[in-house]
């Protein structure tokens, strides 16, 4: 009997359903649970209160990234609350036998950077973390999504979650990217098209020649921001690019186990004729570098575009939202973004802090200087990225240009670690959220690619990087 063609998502889902009662969510097995200091303490408190153990410490990996300062791991953490939260993670990991990449570990970093880097993230897995950007790991063809702290507790206790099956949404990207246009621009263009709630209830699968042509690091940037389009997860089918990236990494299988794994992973891509609940198509060749102008990632434009006019919107609530966003951002309807002065440039975050991101930025900084009065922060995603970047001399390029080179962490993406904007400041940021106050109370964020960010750092204003290449 012929079986129904299945999507990548359906294959992973089916392989992880432990039980399913009628009119109830599925009991879904979780292969890898990543934890960090901010969303885990209350989960451990819950475990203790119920007298439970961590069911699979061997499938649980911890690091600290959100609250840690990026100036130096050797200086004391001045923020008492952040220090207490970090200490709580150290104590919890020690008590429950969980592997921790702690403050002084050479492998510490942003959780979504170190998972792939260590080879922990593998095709076909289910991966969760108390962090919405867990969608990053979908770049490997893993079903990866963010969960709340109650769910962190559930996974610690049972290695399973109760989940309703989401619907599927194919994002097909035709063509090839032009010069100066990157995977960050693909995802910003998608979200500008479908809106921040467009993917709610769905899992994205990114397909098409433009996606196939991307490196793993570029794919991670796209999957990372799936949640900004409302989808908890975003997947890319594994291929030779995926296998080449994983081969030889610390936790990747070796020898015969590697061959068996690759054979298994080759079965994962969506079958010919598999049906998605929804589909959208983008043309990579038509994309310009993208930039946001408002207070959510869906408020994005091609960089040569003009800020939209609320008076042209018919929906009263949308008009209100745009009015509010432009007021917060201090922008006028119809104004171009090119030439808009900026105070700060942030290159980092789980979206764009990997070695290739830093190489792109450094390529532009080489032989150039940061514009007077602009503060530039370059924050590698992990201590390993930092080490590799320094081995290539990228840190020297950044420093000589006048940028600040830091230790790994979430830094100014979340502004809960000392790195933040001052009220009213404008930043071009390679991170993922331009929500009000996200990078510091009153701070105003333009989201863009590392190339566009580096261009703004050099000119002191929003610039089309294609004119500088």
């Amino acid at each position, binding site marked *: 009997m012929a079986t129904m063609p299945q999507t990548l998502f359906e294959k992973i889902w089916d392989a992880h359903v432990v039980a399913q009662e009628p009119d109830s969510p599925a009991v879904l097995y979780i292969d890898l649970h990543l934890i960090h200091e*901010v969303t885990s303490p209350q989960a451990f408190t819950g475990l203790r209160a119920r007298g439970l153990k961590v069911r699979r410490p061997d499938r649980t990996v911890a690091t600290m990234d959100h609250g840690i300062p990026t100036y130096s791991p050797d200086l004391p953490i001045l923020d008492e*609350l952040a220090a207490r939260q970090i200490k709580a993670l150290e104590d919890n990991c020690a008590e429950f036998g969980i592997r921790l990449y702690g403050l002084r570990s050479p492998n510490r970093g942003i959780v979504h950077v170190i998972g792939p880097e260590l080879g922990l993230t593998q095709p076909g897995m289910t991966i969760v973390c108390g962090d919405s950007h867990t969608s990053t790991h979908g770049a490997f063809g893993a079903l990866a999504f963010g969960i709340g702290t*109650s769910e962190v507790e559930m996974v610690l206790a*049972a290695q399973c979650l109760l989940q309703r099956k989401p619907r599927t949404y194919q994002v097909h990207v035709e063509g090839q990217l032009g010069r100066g246009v990157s995977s960050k621009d693909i995802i910003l263009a998608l979200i500008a098209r479908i809106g921040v709630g467009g993917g709610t209830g769905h899992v994205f699968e990114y397909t098409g020649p433009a996606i196939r042509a991307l490196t793993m690091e570029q794919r991670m940037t796209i999957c990372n921001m799936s*949640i900004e389009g*409302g989808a908890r997860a975003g997947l890319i089918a594994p291929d030779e690019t995926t296998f080449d990236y994983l081969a030889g990494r610390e936790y990747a299988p070796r020898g015969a186990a590697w061959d068996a794994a690759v054979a298994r992973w080759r079965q994962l891509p969506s079958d010919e004729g598999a049906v998605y609940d929804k589909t959208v198509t983008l043309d990579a060749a038509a994309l310009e570098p993208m930039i946001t102008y408002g207070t959510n990632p869906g408020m994005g434009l091609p960089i040569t575009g003009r800020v939209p006019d609320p008076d042209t919107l018919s929906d009263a609530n949308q008009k209100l939202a745009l009015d509010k966003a432009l007021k917060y951002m201090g922008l006028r309807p119809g104004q171009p973004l090119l030439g808009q002065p900026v105070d700060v440039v942030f290159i980092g975050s789980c979206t764009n802090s990997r070695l290739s991101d830093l190489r792109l930025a450094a390529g532009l900084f080489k032989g150039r200087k940061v514009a007077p009065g602009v503060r530039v922060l370059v924050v590698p995603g992990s201590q390993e990225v930092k080490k590799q970047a320094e081995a290539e001399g990228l840190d020297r390029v950044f420093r000589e240009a006048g940028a600040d080179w830091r230790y790994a962490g979430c830094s100014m993406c979340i502004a809960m670690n000392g790195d933040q904007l001052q009220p009213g400041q404008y930043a071009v940021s390679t991170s993922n959220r331009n929500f009000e106050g996200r990078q510091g109370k009153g701070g105003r964020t333009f989201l863009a690619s590392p190339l566009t960010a580096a261009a703004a750092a050099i000119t002191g204003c929003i610039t089309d990087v294609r004119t500088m290449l």
Partner: protein
Amino acid sequence: MPQFTTLTSRLVALPVNDIDTDQIIPARYLKVTDKAGLGAALFADWRYDADGSPKPDFALNQPAAQGAQILLAGDNFGCGSSREHAPWALIGYGFRAVISTSFADIFRNNALKNGLLPVVVDPATHAELLELAEEAPGATLVVDLAAQTLTLPGGRAVSFPIDGFSKACLLKGTDELGYLLSFEPQIAAYEAVHS
């Protein structure tokens, strides 16, 4: 988890679309190791001036909003981060239900696990409720979870959807971890085959 059966309360409206979890509770308030006291940080950057005094024009600071347990918000409430501090802050403040046309997935899951009811209404009902909130500040609504109805001051009842599992958990105050742990034999059997 606290039980949720019926709720009769005043309504407070925050008619903004795409209210993200960074607005519900800004990240600087996440440096905690427990859940208590987060109500004070709810909507902090919209609610307080730089010196910490309440902004008089913000909805929650209006006299008619005091004691309201039902929040009426714009489309796609709770988008953004996975922080469960968002429902903890809403509950800490005193809310038991949020009405919108849609909720972000992670927020909805987090809310349900904490006895905070996400009530989805159609755009026409949503518009009617917004009008009501503007014309009669502090108007009272009745939420009946068993019947899945929201009753407006005029007596008109509109029904709202909720999956049977979440409804049963809320009505009984059952927490989901207990239910999940009852699958121990199946989980062990799965692990025996898969790892």
